[in-house]
């Protein structure tokens, strides 16, 4: 009997049983599957049991007493999905977001997500909302989607099981790819880019990796049910993944002050989330103080905002702003012939 069929038979048997089913009875019921030596049969059943538990099947072994015999039993109430009584709006949110994540082609736990959507839609009948939200991930080129999707799925499994991964990483900052062993703590999505956060054994500390830059990856297959590492209790993905360019942890953090005027003044809060804002003492001018761990990232952002955004201090930041702007002027004032030289 093939394994899928045997496990479904076990489900049917255990869901129907009113009394615990002993190992001896199971062997009687499935003589060709659990035949052979005791050891081999037990190993086979252990693997089936592990699969049942993975499926969410609430299987337990009860020790017998005067009134009940030893054996396996299942809590039926814990098995069946109860109706979640989601309102129309709640179902719409879950469906719109879940379907968009699936359609993006790359979401960790893609298979889990697809099953979850089916299950929560089970009681909805014909009233399932039609999702009209789409997500296109950035930094993933045509033809690369499948690879990124497969990596995310592997990483999701490794994160869930807490198994280390061995990866080949191609950072644009380095000419050659590096080989690293990483304990994957979690995955974060920022501006359409998936980032792996974990403990890098090569660097001996926390590091982030863009998933689309992982060239090759293997998950540790030794002792699959035993975790390789613990994630610290206070770990937070958000603390490690940059949302804005100046948040990349390239340098020691420094405080930078910006001056925003004109149309930018009223948008300062949304342009620079987390910055401390105050009036600069002039009508319609706002001063923003912020901690910056990648100065060039902030300066480039400021340049793109235009002359209504100026760097006030410290001097080193002002100088960098001026240096970059001057370089741009020089490069665009050169005669055309020199450009292509």
């Amino acid at each position, binding site marked *: 009997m093939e394994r899928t069929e045997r*496990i479904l038979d076990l489900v049917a048997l255990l*869901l129907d049983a009113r009394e615990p089913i002993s190992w001896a009875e199971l062997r009687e019921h499935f003589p060709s599957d659990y035949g052979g030596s005791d050891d081999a049969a037990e190993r086979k059943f252990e693997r089936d049991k592990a699969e049942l538990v993975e499926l969410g099947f*609430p299987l337990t072994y009860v020790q017998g007493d005067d009134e009940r015999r030893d054996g396996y039993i299942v809590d039926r109430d814990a098995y069946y999905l109860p109706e979640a009584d989601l309102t129309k709006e709640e179902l719409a949110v879950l469906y719109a977001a879940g379907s968009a994540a699936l359609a993006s082609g790359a979401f960790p*736990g893609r298979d889990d997500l697809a099953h979850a959507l089916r299950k929560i839609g089970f009681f909805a009948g014909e009233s399932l909302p039609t999702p009209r939200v789409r997500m296109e991930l*950035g930094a993933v080129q045509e033809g690369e989607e499948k690879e990124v999707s497969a990596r995310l799925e592997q990483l999701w499994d490794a994160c869930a099981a807490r198994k280390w991964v061995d990866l080949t990483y191609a950072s644009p900052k380095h000419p050659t790819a590096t080989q690293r062993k990483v304990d994957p703590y979690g995955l974060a999505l920022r501006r359409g880019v998936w980032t792996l956060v974990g403990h890098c054994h090569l660097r001996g500390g926390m590091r982030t990796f863009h998933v689309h830059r992982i060239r090759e990856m293997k998950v540790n297959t030794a002792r699959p049910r035993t975790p390789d590492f613990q994630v610290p209790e206070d770990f937070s993905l958000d603390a490690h993944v940059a949302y804005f360019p100046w948040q990349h942890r390239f340098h020691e953090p420094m405080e930078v002050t910006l001056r925003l005027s004109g149309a930018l003044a009223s948008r300062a809060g949304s342009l620079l989330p987390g910055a401390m804002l105050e009036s600069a003492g002039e009508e319609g001018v706002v001063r923003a103080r912020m901690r910056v761990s990648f100065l060039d990232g902030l300066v480039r952002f400021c*340049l793109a905002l235009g002359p209504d955004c100026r760097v006030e201090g410290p001097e080193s930041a002002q100088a960098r702003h*001026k240096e970059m702007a001057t370089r741009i002027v020089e490069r665009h004032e050169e005669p055309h012939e020199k450009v292509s030289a």
Partner: protein
Amino acid sequence: MSNVHERLRRLLFLVPYVSKHPGVTVEALAKALNISREDLLEELDLLTCVGRPPFNPDDYIDIYVDNDRVYVDLDQRLFAPPRLTPGEAAALAAAAELLRPAAGDALQSALQKLERVLPPSTRERYREMYRKIDASADAPQALGPLTRAIIERLEVTFAYATPGRAPESRRVRPYELLSHRGQWYLQGFDHMRQDARLFRLDRMEDITVTDTAFLPPPDARADVPNPARSRTETSVRVRFSPVAAPYVKERFGRDARPLADGGVEVVVAGDSERWLTQWVLSFGGEAQVVEPASARAAVARAARASVG
């Protein structure tokens, strides 16, 4: 995950689904399970062999196809799907976070209800796994009313601020919301232009959902904005230094032409001087407009203004 695991999950859902929807067509069932018709028929064949000891005729699942419709007479207690596993609930909760800023109370209550349908023994595992995906994207508040308008097929009005121009009042039939590289867009039929248009959500103000209903076309699908693929009369050639080249290659793929010095060149649509200037400036000197001269001058002007 193994193929056996995936198949088991599918089969444990299939029987309850047919029990709940007797006479579902083979096509609709295959679509619900996201498998081909052939694979579905194979799964149905397998299920007819599933039962419980002592395997008398009444102990087997009785599921069959009649006139291209699927029925189940004996479900062997598989009348409802299994509860969500911690992984399934965690993946769904993390995906729902994508719309957090726009979903308001509905998201919070949906997540609470989701947790309640988990077996109590697995809730801690679910919370642990949920912390492992952070997809709390930058979805704007405007997603809320726009999602509602799309689902209820109602026209919307808003003030749209095109850079360099005064905000214009628009009336639009909303078809689809699109997030691309963290930027949100609405695609819909614009009454003013009498054509389908893409609007950036961060440029919309005063969104109102009207009472005017409409029927969306079945195939409305927004094109992903890509300045390197836009067809405009004015194209701009931009070169990037070897330092910036790897990042530009990631963004533009085969649209980035390699140069002898290790840099790359990209030709982009030049119909928005403001966008182009901002974009070139954001490379802090690692990008250079080659032509046309007007675009070069615009970038030089903007950089000079920043120096003060």
